[in-house]
């Protein structure tokens, strides 16, 4: 089977890779690009562990065919921090103990970033609905929601300060 050539930008880097036409973007990220941050919890769009931003939109990478990424700008969990400087969400997740096993964490961080990019001042209910596509079996969500709200506050302070 001939392989499809894809050019795109991932976490700020222009990259090229070959993939099978039917391969998911999640598999391409993991198998071709060796970016292991996005996880497969289900492969059917139900858990959000594979969440990425594609041209600024939150997507389940397991539901996207890799060739669809041609020309797109993709952000994975590996691209959220600014060099060594953690994103406030990452910092607040650490300080707020928002992870136990951590396998859902990459997806939550990406989904929460998508929320805060579009709504810097969400209510608890808005956070809960924005993250309803991400499953966490460990935490009961409490500390995740609090950490996202704390990150929003911190980002507002940074803007104000």
């Amino acid at each position, binding site marked *: 089977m001939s392989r499809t050539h894809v050019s795109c930008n991932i976490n700020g880097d222009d990259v090229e890779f070959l993939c099978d036409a039917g391969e998911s973007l999640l598999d391409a990220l993991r198998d071709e690009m060796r970016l292991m941050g996005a996880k*497969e*919890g289900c492969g059917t769009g139900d*858990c959000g562990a594979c969440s990425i931003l594609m041209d600024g939109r939150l997507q389940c990478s397991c539901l996207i065919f890799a060739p669809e990424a041609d020309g797109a700008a993709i952000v994975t969990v*590996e691209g959220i921090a600014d060099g060594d400087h953690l994103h406030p969400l990452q910092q607040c997740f650490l300080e707020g103990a928002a992870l136990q*096993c951590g396998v859902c964490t990459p997806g939550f961080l990406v989904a929460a970033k998508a929320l805060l990019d579009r709504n810097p001042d969400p209510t608890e209910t808005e956070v809960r609905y924005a*993250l309803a596509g991400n499953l966490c079996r460990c935490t009961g969500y409490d*500390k995740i*929601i609090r950490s996202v709200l704390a990150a929003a506050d911190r980002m507002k302070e940074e803007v104000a300060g």
Partner: protein
Amino acid sequence: MTITEQRPSYRYVGTRPVRHDGLDKVVGKARYAADLVLPGMLYGHILRSPHAHARIVDIDTSVAEAMPGVRAVITGADFPDLPADDPERNMTRNLMARDKVLYEGHAVAAVAAATRRQARDAAEAIEVTYEVLPHTLDILEAMEPGAPLLHDDILTTGLDSEPSEPSNVANRTCYERGDIEQGFASADVVVEGEFLTKPIHQGYIEPHACVADTGQDGKTVIWCSSQGHFRVRSQTAAMLGWDTSRIKVIPAEIGGGFGGKTTIYLEPLAVELSARAGRPVKMVMSRDEVFRATGPTPGSVIRVKLGATGDGRITAAKAWLAYESGAFPGVWAMLGCMCVVSPYNVENFLIEGFEVVVNKPVNAAYRAPSAPMAAFATDTLVDEIARRLDMDPIDLRLLNCPSAGDQAPYGPKWPLIGLRECLEAIRDSEHYRSAPAAGHGRGVASGFWFNIGEASSATVNLNENGTATVVTGSPDIGGSRASMALMAAEELGIDVHAIQPVVGDTEVVGFTDVTEGSRATFATGMAVVEACRDLKGQLRGRAARMWDCDVEDVEWADGRATHSGGEHEPLALADITAEAGRTGGPLGATASLNARGAGPAFSVQVTDVSVDDETGRVTVERYTTAQDAGTAIHPDYVEGQMQGGVVQGIGWALNEEYIHDADGVMENPGFLDYRIPVASDLPMIETIIVEVPNPNHPYGVRGVGEVGIVPPLPALANAIHDATDARIRELPMSPPRVLAAINSGNGA
């Protein structure tokens, strides 16, 4: 909130530092088993049974073997058949069917090929000829004489007389005390009911995964997602017929387990495929496989009858419990029997349990296994007694509350326990003291779990710069590394981030039992403390050498050696490690122990719900949980365990269930149709950590991982009743069931 009875104040224990493994997890660097890639690695795929029960007549692998990329194909015949009395025999027959398939999803053959797709295509090309057999899916039906038999060698144990015919009932467990007739005769109120629950899945977000690399020297290295890599080693060895010394198991980060990763599914298959192919083999389950072939927790039928005096004292309990174990027997009914009335002092009881095999996946442990179903029955009936007597449900529980010295229903005398303190914590909480909002219903329940000790090992090495490395054999499934570091910091008197906690593989650290039974912080923590105390003795010795004085004149406190006569400037730990080369070499200590005296865990919870009387949908409006942690080493992760347990219980109570069609095929093997709670379903989960220190642990730790899942089932049932007058005795309390109950006006 933390309510502390009386404990010493600590410098590190009880603080909330950022966990050591956290950074890797928020930047996407943490390595889970599915993330590992080795040069030349192949992919494995398993062919699974489409039938709930069938005889395997023939397996033809010839087409598959000739397909592109295929390097190895294996079936059950490639593994030794263990003798009938081998304790691991059922495990091996679960991992690869022999003679018969016993549930839909039972593994029949496996392939290793160059790509995932090639492996899957080849597995599908294996031709299996089945003779389909009648199956049984329902516990009560499976118990009937004449039901289709899964095994022809199960003779029920624990009966008064040994049966002559095989059945699906593996054993009967019985606990009895006092005079039950007399107990009911002295009761003013008697309540009873039958309670039904379905199998549900642990639902960890990371599917099972492993990589095995078998060399020509006959040794293998396994990287895997497991709660216990020493058990992976022993079970893999048993299935392969190998000596354990040929197997090294390296624990990867684990993406949730909750009991479901205390046994193995993939590892011996990957090792065998790797041995045949001469290449590393990775196996990763799909979510569908996780549901169909890995351990749900049992479905159950539980009948309980309770009697109480007019002033609320429980006089008698009768319980009949049947747990379905899936295709091979487990210990689930016995555990249920041990838990069913444990939060209550009852003088007269008869508790009988039956372990029943059915054509469903083999059950695995799930967080306080068997206790939630039992509590669902008992704590719903206790609520009925409170209503009949017009008593506050917490007062009723306090009146019947066991404390140290009382005899637990399953035999031993209770040690120091914190049930009373948890009841009082809920009674005095702001939540309980404020009335539920108009239209909301309130429910209360309590729960018990044993906690266990078992074997643990730890090695603590002091580095030349005054930092320490703590190596243990306990996979970290919920923040235990941070707890180990905190206890070591407290002992050694150095900063918690000067300590690097590590989970060691099977060759670098001593034997350690599985992370289960809420034991890691308790038992492995004890080993860490013991090793640190050994080191403190060594540090005093080294200081004595440096000062050329008697070791008796050296004291160790706050991370430094001081001279009792004040003749020398104190030495910090780093001062001593820097000189270690001149005073006797590196400083390190190892402790291996069998921990005893894991303090029993109790939790008491209150919830307010609203029920939509048009759809039957239940919304959890408010939830507060109190739990005795003994001592909370890292309160964030104690709260996390409490909250996680509660939410799993909420999912179990309201949504989750295995649904099988008439042929025994699972109909909802994905997160779309098997719906676990999501963020928008829930309120914040308020926590009250109660600390009644466990006298058997140097810092008073009790396990905290499990008991939180026990009370939500009855607490929600009681709250729904309070809101609607409908008593629901079957889970899940999903909208159709709640609506039907409301409409039938089945108030009790």
